[in-house]
């Protein structure tokens, strides 16, 4: 639920701010009036950047990773940051964005949740051509989507591959588990990467996946983690908005965990193997610096370990030396470039060929952003 909402139609708001302006000038003088001035005058002072999060800013997960990036922007000279958390992926996000644009004078917006893009950003972007909408994870397509909207994301599947490498060295049951929110391409790529990472250590490993159906559903995530441990999985990772519950429950049941989104090692110091973390501070400060210098931001921004878009949590004490060596070697290999997780011959878990002999998809390949299958060895279905 958003903390506050403001009106959305342009007409009444203009009257309101003019009235506020008059009242402010009369009663309190210039200082009060300044805050009520309409956007164009205010925006001259510097750049105002808006961040919108679907959940709380300190969820040990997705939203926290973005808020850490926003904090880095806040520390920059000449930039004002406005934030709003708990904004649902409904009309609420349109109202919040309009209020940031019209009341706070924001000209660069980072609506960070996947579901904000279509239809919400796509509705507002044509209406506010001077505002830049930068969406995390969405597939911006040239010619199809507005030019003042853009998308950015990181190749975090590589991080889950490395999680899998660590898991492959630690699992004794040769069964690892994944608590997933929804079967969208990015989640499927993470699940597949996690298993393929583990299989690069031991090809007999299988991965059980449980979908909860929602990005944040604490009780269901806890139940899913229990079910995975009950089914014999001894290393568990996840792709939900806040991995705190999964990490705590898995550790409580004696399983090992691979982190996701942010560093959760403080929640399970002995059982935390490593984690695939976002490094949005780098992405956001780069984009804001470009805007301050009057340079355009590319509409389609992607990066991985080498570009500093993602990073790995330090390896935990449970990873054996052989695992550490392989982890570091694979990580260096990925950073060098040219590394493929999905490479042939590879079948999905229905038996269909998804990559033929000799075929390999680089992390940059847009085909991977349309992934709709789980690879052989993953126990689970996408629907």
């Amino acid at each position, binding site marked *: 639920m958003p903390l506050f909402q403001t009106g959305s139609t342009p007409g009444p708001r203009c009257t309101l701010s003019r009235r506020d302006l008059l009242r402010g000038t009369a009663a309190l003088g210039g200082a009060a009036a300044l805050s009520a001035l309409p956007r164009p005058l205010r925006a001259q002072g510097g750049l105002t950047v808006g961040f919108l999060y679907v959940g*709380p800013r300190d969820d*040990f997960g997705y939203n926290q990773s973005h808020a850490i990036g926003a904090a880095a922007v806040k520390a920059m000279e000449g930039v004002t940051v406005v934030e709003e958390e708990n904004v649902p992926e409904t009309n609420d996000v349109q109202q919040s964005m309009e209020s940031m644009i019209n009341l706070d004078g924001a000209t660069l917006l980072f609506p960070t949740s996947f579901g904000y893009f279509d239809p919400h950003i796509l509705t507002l972007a044509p209406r506010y051509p001077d505002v830049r909408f930068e969406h995390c994870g969405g597939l911006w397509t040239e010619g199809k989507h507005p030019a003042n909207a853009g998308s950015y994301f990181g190749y975090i599947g590589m991080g889950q591959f490395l999680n899998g490498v660590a898991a492959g060295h630690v699992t004794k*049951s040769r069964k690892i588990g994944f608590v997933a929110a929804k079967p969208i391409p990015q989640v499927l790529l993470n699940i597949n990467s996690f298993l393929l990472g583990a299989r690069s250590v031991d090809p007999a490993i299988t991965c059980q996946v449980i979908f909860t159906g929602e990005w944040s559903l604490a009780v269901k995530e*806890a*139940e899913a983690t*229990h079910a995975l441990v*009950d089914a*014999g999985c001894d290393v568990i990772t996840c792709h939900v908005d*806040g991995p705190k519950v999964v990490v705590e429950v898995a550790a409580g049941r004696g399983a090992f965990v691979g982190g996701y989104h942010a560093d959760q090692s403080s929640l399970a110091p002995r059982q935390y193997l490593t984690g695939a973390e976002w490094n949005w501070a780098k992405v956001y400060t780069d984009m804001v610096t470009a805007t301050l210098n009057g340079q355009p931001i590319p509409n389609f921004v992607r990066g991985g370990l080498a570009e500093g878009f993602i990073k790995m949590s330090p390896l935990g004490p449970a990873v054996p030396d052989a695992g550490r060596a392989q982890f570091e070697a694979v990580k260096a290999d990925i950073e060098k470039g040219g590394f493929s997780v999905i490479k042939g011959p590879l079948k999905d878990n229905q038996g269909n060929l998804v990559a033929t002999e000799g075929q390999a998809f680089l992390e940059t390949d847009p085909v991977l952003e349309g992934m709709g299958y789980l690879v052989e060895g993953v126990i689970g279905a996408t*629907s």
Partner: protein
Amino acid sequence: MENDLGLWAVPLAVVGGAIRVSTPILFVSLGETLTERSGRINLGLEGTLVLGAMTGYATAVLTGSPWAGVAVAALAGALFGLLHGLICSMGRVNDIAVGIAMMLLGTGLAFYFGKPYIQPAAPDLPAIPLGGWSSLPQVRSALNVNALFLIGIAAALALAWALRSTRPGLILRVVGDSTDAARAMGLNPALIRTGATALGGAFAGIGGAYLSLYYPGSWNEGISSGQGLMAVALVIFARWSPINCLWAALLFGGAGALGPALQSVGVTQGYYLFYAAPYVLTLGVLIATSSPSRALAGAPGELSITK
């Protein structure tokens, strides 16, 4: 693989889920039963649940004692119920509208004051290992029973007995069934309803403490995800009987574990459908037991949505 239970994992997970998930639902629906038996509806218990989760967690963080957290959560819930009761005691106030306002206020307060407590870790309520006889880790884990679950069962039995066979129970039922009769007996209906709402709030607060201090066992803003609202609706399903509340809560807890458990044994198609199972079940039971020719059996006479 050793310890592979195959399909037996499903009923085991359902039993385990019923024990783990049902407690907050049980406490909220017991509290709501008490309030509704006095002739008032408190829709705000979702807010009380979240507030209880927050105050309980915060107290446990600050004092290091989870049981102090439970006590403070009960107190916060009672105060919140008292506020609802007092507002509704004024003339021409609609208890449903007040309840919705209290729900929003409760979640808002909890989110606002709960911010600093999302990151720190609080001590958990201890579990009683009743599965020690089994060599299977799955069974041992499923039978890790929290004391609050046992207290909840005891409370359901005690409430059922008190409502049926004690003088305070009789007074509560009279007030709930007929304000006029209660007045004729020299009772003060507003006072009794306010007391029942406060006590109901205390129950919901304890339910909240279970959420944050035991299962899932951490405070965040999505901790309840509507369980309080569902529990209020369950009271109708349970026909205002504390014992039925217990069955309803167990049913919902167990049904909630069905989806993940089925996926874990390889039944992976259509999990959205399994997640809807508890609601389909509720709908089915309500349709099967309703009748167009009479009012809902067991409904307190003064309970009305038009008052």
